[in-house]
């Protein structure tokens, strides 16, 4: 093996919105190995959830990720409702789907912008984010928040969509559709983007199966999976839509899948709003008295893939175990297939292509002593380290 340089991506890097560390072992410009380190931002969400009531957990899991802040409550609602087996009102089902799809639109537009930014194509970045803005405004009108919507609750939703909001939403969607069409055209027909993205970070269908990758990452490699169709929840089996797939497996195919999914989402929302008009207003929540002992499993298709929640109840008012698996957890390891062998510039866009969400994926890191194999840095040791550092800084300040 020749001489290798380590090119660090992270822990703080313009490519990453969150602290995360990728070590690229490079031979010249070629990436020959890659190591992923995590544990910079662990928040212990699962443990926090065990100390909250079933109702409160919604607002905790919503804050796991700022971008797909409806998919976690969605999966959690599916899990909790499966324990007593409640059937939520039809109107709530449609409203849940509308919120879920609106989120997909804004998340995909956000990704297109970020991908443009990573390629140095800042015009696409600014344009995509400008077109995303009305969607966020729409969220504010419907739910009261641009992000972290606090819309879901056990047995239904917390706010209704009235006809006035529905009309406004349709108008906004029309605008978003026109702009997204323009953006799609600009991306799919740009020869320079073709040259830059085609054949980069290729994941074959076999790679997807090996790593268990989900969502648009899998669909771009021709693996036809989508929780919304395979195990329908909310109103997805009541409307007409299709799963978008592509065969390339490269970054371009992933961009294509995401861009085309925007139009599917728009179509789903339109159908949902149409049916909402025929349903009586106000019937948005089924009464759930308490959650019996048992286990509940729920999943939902987040913009990045399948979110999985497991909830165990002992009949009290809070979960005794809550396990979460976000899509990025299976998508991020595919970097070893997509980046190794490519160049550094390809690694940058190939990592961005799966739309990784690091805060969803964050796991606790444990340090081991390399010689003795003993655990290092437990809580007491970390506190002592921090105190020592403070002492050191104090001394330096006093010296001045």
């Amino acid at each position: 093996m020749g001489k290798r340089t380590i090119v660090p991506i992270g822990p703080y890097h313009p490519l990453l919105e969150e602290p995360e560390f990728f070590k690229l072992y490079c031979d010249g410009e070629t990436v020959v190995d890659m190591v992923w380190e995590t544990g910079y931002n662990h928040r212990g969400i699962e443990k926090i959830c065990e100390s909250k009531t079933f109702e409160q957990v919604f607002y905790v899991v919503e804050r796991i990720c700022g971008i797909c802040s409806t998919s976690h409550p969605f999966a959690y609602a599916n899990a909790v409702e499966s324990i007593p087996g409640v059937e939520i009102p039809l109107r709530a089902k449609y409203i849940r789907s509308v919120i879920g799809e609106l989120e997909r639109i804004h998340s995909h537009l956000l990704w297109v912008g970020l991908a443009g930014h990573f390629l140095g194509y800042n015009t696409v970045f600014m344009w995509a984010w400008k077109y995303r803005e009305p969607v966020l405004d729409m969220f504010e009108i419907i739910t009261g928040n641009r992000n972290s919507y606090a819309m879901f609750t056990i047995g239904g939703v917390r706010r209704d969509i009235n006809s006035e909001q529905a009309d406004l939403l349709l108008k906004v969607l029309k605008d978003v559709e026109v702009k997204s069409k323009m953006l799609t055209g600009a991306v799919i027909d740009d020869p320079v983007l073709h040259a830059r993205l085609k054949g980069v970070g290729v994941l074959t269908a076999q790679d997807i199966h090996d790593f268990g990758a989900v969502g648009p990452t899998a669909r771009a490699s021709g693996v036809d999976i989508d929780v919304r169709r395979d195990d329908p929840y909310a109103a997805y089996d009541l409307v007409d839509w299709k799963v978008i797939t592509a065969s390339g497996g490269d970054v371009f195919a992933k961009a294509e899948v995401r861009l085309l999914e925007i139009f599917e989402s728009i179509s789903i929302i339109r159908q949902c709003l149409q049916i909402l008009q025929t349903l009586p207003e106000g019937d948005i929540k089924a009464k759930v008295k308490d959650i019996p002992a048992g286990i509940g499993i729920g999943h939902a298709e987040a913009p990045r893939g399948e979110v999985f929640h497991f909830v165990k109840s002992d009949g009290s008012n809070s979960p005794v175990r809550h396990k979460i698996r976000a899509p990025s957890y299976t998508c991020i390891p595919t970097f070893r297939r997509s980046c190794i062998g490519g160049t550094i510039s390809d690694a940058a866009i190939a990592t961005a292509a799966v739309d990784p969400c690091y805060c969803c994926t964050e796991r606790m890191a444990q340090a081991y002593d390399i010689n003795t194999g003993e655990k290092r840095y437990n809580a007491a040791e970390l506190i002592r380290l921090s105190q020592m550092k403070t002492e050191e800084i104090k001394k330096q300040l006093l010296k001045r």
Partner: protein
Amino acid sequence: MAKEIFYFLIFPGLLFSGVIGGFLSWFDRKLTARVQFRQGPPLLQPLYDFVKLLAKETMIPKYGSPTTFLLSPVFALFGASLAAVFILLPALGIDGGFNGDLLVIIYVLNIPSVTYIIGALASGNPLAAVGASREMKLILSYELPFLLVLVSIIIKAGMTINLAEIVEYQVLHGAFIGSLSGIIGFITIIMCIQAKLGLVPFDMAEGEGEICDGIMIESSGTILAMYKFVKYIMLLILPALVCTLFMSGLSVSGINILWSVLKILGVVLLLTLIRNTNPRVRIKQAMRFFWIWMNLFAIISIVLAVFGL
């Protein structure tokens, strides 16, 4: 002697080209902002940036060669100012220059790029090293088509390597951009300049999303301010060179001054539009683009020039 020092330090060298270049950089940024639905910076923003950076702490990397690291921006500034003198004096019609100044310009224009590389390698940062190797490859790619275009200009101007005479020839016989070989040469040289200035799609040496500003990663404070100043100067003199070679110079007498300003702004506008409508390409693709396509264009331009087209 006093005159030469005045030329070098004040007009048209360091100070003048830096100030005008700063204005052009504002123009570029404002235009970019308007293309991207943003407000854009105020007119004095380049000055604010420069002054703010001067006041900041200059960090010197621990694992590098401090002397080389600190000297390289000085040499960059020196080279850029020298190039400004050699290009702007004949371009503005102040001084006739000397026979062969075109060859000097070719050399002097490379000094900033080379000092970027030296400074980056002296900083001892792996990302800067990646950036430096990319910049090196980039110089190797764009330099040949750049020279070939100059050859076609020399042929068209009747075998002269004096910038002032090239301008004179164009004043008498019409600007070179009006001819077929001129247009092809113009396209080629605009691409070369895009790479020389390190703008998208050829900004892989800095590549913000990939290698966090690459060659500039360790520069801070005064060092970064000096590099910024060099970039301002380059943003004036390279479009000025294009105007001199293809659009019969930048006359400053009477109403012509308006024309000259429009010419420079036009070229900068073109550069800005290219940088806002393209993603960054890979270094391999950039090399292929220059070595195959741009060299081909330049050779076509030479052949057409020989036939007097």
